[in-house]
């Protein structure tokens, strides 16, 4: 019996690796297993070597493994590159013969020929279906009922019934013609309904649930998957997704739509956010409730567009000229991404300021199983939105809590004047009066204290493990997953996941970290969270465990580093 199974599909981009691994993952998720996937691809459309990992386990898993049990290489190069990572008891499913005892010898040609003849097709037309041979080979080695695979294939090709039938005929042939010499006896599980999603889906669903009506975006990896998902559901839920000419337009349009009264957002990645910075400052000055979803990827400049990094924390914190209030929330998994999305819109509208939801490539491109969200907990708070006739209205009226009633165009007596210049209560700009400036700065900046008081503790930090542990790891974002997987094994560590980066929850952080040995784990070169921690609390970390090669943390390298008897001040992880 094995506890977890790791399958890799590798090959040239565009050869169906994504489809193959996703189908496998979905079949296993339907069996009730937890499934975690990791995609490593090149920033190209076709040709370059890419690979997808699928990890399956009856228990919750949040990271990929360095070990491969079943390798499906779609070309010879993939055999060369990945056969060495295959465990000695593993199996390679490959079309051509290999001088490797682990080779699972499936009669590809005969199987495809049989199906081609049956459907009156030329053998060459079935070339694209080789992946199905491999898939069926894998599920047979796991001992899975072939009908379960066929069901998912039929769903995948719902609009192409003939293609579905041909693929399913291939599955039948593989199951009758292939007698595996190696099998994988995975610990059984019981069925539980789970979604198989990544964070772009979670955020997208969060936006729909939150009542977002306007999203603008400019195409960028890995953020545009989210906008594209929203485009697929906008007809059903009646909202607008606008693809703009650039990110400057994207943020300006989101800001304007917010000031017109809609819940509005934009999604981007580092290079796009760089272009949005001026308007972020404008949103702070104009007290605009706009939400920016920022999917970090490996920088600087164009960097490695399809690779992972948590390198933009300090940038998100400081982006924009001048001083203005902002809120930054960093979810650590898909579930948090969903709830945080809704919370971000609430905070934006309640406090009338820009909110940044800081995500990353690993979250955007890693599909895994998640329990359905509990919608009964969700609340929407639109703050002081004025949607009925009013009089004597002032957009920037001084109020005790710094938050003015917010009218929008179309409200009788509620004309708004929005201005990025310093302004009076009425929004007009022809004052550079020193006292007014001080009052307006106080008004805006005071919101940070209000947010800190109002936001619930779980949105700020989450603590995992025994509170009595001497060693506490601090981390953020998707790094949480691999750390939690290891925490289950190494009981001496606890984890403090910092979720709200701005305003920084000093009190909550101190509560968990005071007097502890602190280890920072994050995916960037310098240890940006460790720096932030020191800046805000004076606390020094004893070690910074970092990784910046563009790949997320693997389970084994995390175990290895945390098992060391003494951690260096700086530990660099490099597994690829």
């Amino acid at each position, binding site marked *: 019996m094995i506890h977890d199974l790791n399958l890799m599909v590798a090959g040239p981009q565009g050869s169906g690796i994504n489809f193959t691994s996703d189908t496998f993952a979905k079949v296993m998720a339907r069996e009730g297993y937890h499934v975690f996937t990791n995609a490593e691809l090149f920033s190209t459309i076709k040709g370059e070597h890419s690979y997808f990992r699928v990890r399956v386990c009856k228990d919750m898993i949040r990271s990929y493994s360095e070990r491969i049990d079943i390798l499906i290489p779609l070309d010879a190069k993939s055999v060369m590159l990945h056969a060495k990572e295959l465990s000695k008891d593993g199996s390679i499913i490959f079309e051509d013969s290999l001088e490797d005892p682990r080779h699972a010898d499936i009669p590809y040609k005969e199987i495809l020929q049989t199906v081609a003849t049956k459907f009156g097709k030329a053998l060459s037309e079935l070339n694209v279906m080789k992946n199905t041979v491999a898939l069926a080979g894998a599920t047979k080695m796991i001992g899975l009922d072939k009908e379960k695979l066929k069901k998912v294939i039929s769903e995948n090709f719902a609009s192409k019934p003939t293609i579905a039938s041909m693929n399913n005929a291939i599955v039948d042939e593989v199951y009758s013609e292939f007698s595996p010499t190696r099998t994988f006896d995975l610990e059984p599980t019981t069925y539980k*309904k*789970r*979604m198989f*999603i990544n964070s772009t889906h979670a955020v997208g*669903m969060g936006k*729909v*649930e*939150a*009542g977002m*009506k*306007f999203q603008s975006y400019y195409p960028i990896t890995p953020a545009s998957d989210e906008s594209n998902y929203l*485009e697929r559901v906008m*007809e059903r839920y*009646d909202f*607008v997704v606008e693809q*703009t*000419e*650039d990110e*400057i*337009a994207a943020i*300006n*349009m989101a*800001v*304007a*739509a917010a*000031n*017109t*009264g*809609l*819940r*509005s957002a934009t999604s981007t990645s580092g290079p796009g956010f760089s272009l949005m910075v001026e*308007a972020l400052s404008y949103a702070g000055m104009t007290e605009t409730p706009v939400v920016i979803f920022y999917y970090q990827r490996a920088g600087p400049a164009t960097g490695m567009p399809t690779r992972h990094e948590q390198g933009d924390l300090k940038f998100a914190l400081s982006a924009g000229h001048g001083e203005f209030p902002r809120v930054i929330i960093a979810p650590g998994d898909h579930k948090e991404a969903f709830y945080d999305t*809704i919370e971000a819109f609430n905070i934006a509208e309640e406090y009338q300021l820009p909110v940044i939801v800081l995500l990353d490539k690993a979250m955007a491109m890693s599909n895994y199983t998640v329990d*359905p969200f509990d*919608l009964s907990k*969700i*609340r*929407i*708070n*639109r703050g002081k939105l004025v*949607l009925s006739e009013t009089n004597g209205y*002032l957009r920037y009226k001084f109020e005790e809590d710094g938050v003015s009633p917010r009218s929008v*165009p*179309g*409200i*009788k*007596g509620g*004309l708004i*004047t*929005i*201005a*990025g210049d310093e302004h*009076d*209560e*009425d*929004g*007009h*700009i*022809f*004052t550079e009066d020193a006292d007014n400036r001080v009052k307006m700065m106080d008004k805006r900046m005071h919101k940070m204290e209000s947010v800190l008081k109002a936001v619930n503790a779980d949105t700020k930090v989450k603590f995992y493990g025994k509170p009595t542990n001497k060693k506490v790891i601090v981390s953020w974002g998707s790094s949480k997953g691999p750390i939690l997987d290891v925490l289950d094994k190494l009981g001496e560590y606890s984890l403090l996941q910092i979720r709200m980066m701005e305003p920084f929850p000093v009190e909550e952080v101190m509560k968990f970290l005071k007097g502890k040995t602190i280890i920072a784990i994050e995916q960037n070169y310098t240890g940006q969270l460790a720096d932030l921690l020191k800046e805000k609390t004076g606390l020094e970390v004893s070690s910074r465990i970092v990784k910046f090669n563009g790949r997320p943390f693997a389970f084994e390298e995390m175990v290895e580093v945390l098992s060391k008897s003494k951690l260096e001040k700086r530990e660099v992880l490099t597994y690829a």
Partner: protein
Amino acid sequence: MLSTVNPPAKPQSYKTNVEIDWCPGCGDFGILNALVLALQELKIPNENVVLTGGIGCSSKIPHYVNVNTLHTLHGRSLAQAQAVKIANPRLEVISASGDGDGLGIGSAHFVAAGRRNVDMTYIVFDNGVYGLTKGQASPTLPYGEMPKSIETENLKFPVNPLFLGLASGFTFVARSYSYNIKHLKETLVKAMKHRGLALVDVMQPCVTYNNINTKEFYDPRLYDIEKEGWNPVANNESEYKQKIPQAVVKSLEWGDRIPMGVFMDYQTETYDQKLQKLVPAYGKKNYVMEPIESSGKPLNDVTELMDSFC
């Protein structure tokens, strides 16, 4: 200078009481007056009008007009204005900014706006200089010219807003003149009535920095193309295709005679109609007034989306 708090003065007035800080004699005054007259003529309730500005002298106009106003960032007036109209198609949306704002730093939005054809009006205050930063050359300043405010002659060819507007897909393209308030008001009324994206390029002398393109320069040169027989209306796509080259040729005239008037007036699918192809319910309900929650509980339910991933 001080502003009066809470400016809306007389009922139905389209002017605020905010003190205007343009230079005496500035061409901007004519545009402000013509715009207020146009709004008075159209009698659109103040709360249903949104005026956006960019940054620069002319972009301060939002503060002087008693409607909803967004004083945006440099170059972003048109981008924000389109979003306002998309967010609430029931609003009358007007965007204003200088030629530097709209055709220099904001030129990407100008071109993209033409591709959308949002039903709104964009007024360019076209004076050839960046007035608020003391008169540097702006995108419409002719090649080789050297107004008194710049140190060297202008080495760049000018952008022709009308030509670019036609090329980008603006469905209403006009030129007017800030010292001809009657013509300007009538042009603005036509632009606002037009269903689609309207460009009004206004010759607007900067009395402080541009001593070349002055009232004395324009007065004898400007002539009304419609009075000389040009019919800008294109009733269908084939008429539009046939008229575009002629309108372009007219837009290129510059010298002893400078044409003004409406160059193109073509009604085709507007962006709200196009959006309905993707979102059939779009525009039927007012997104702004439509509740998204009831006693704090969301009205949307993503159960069906969650199920699609199971």
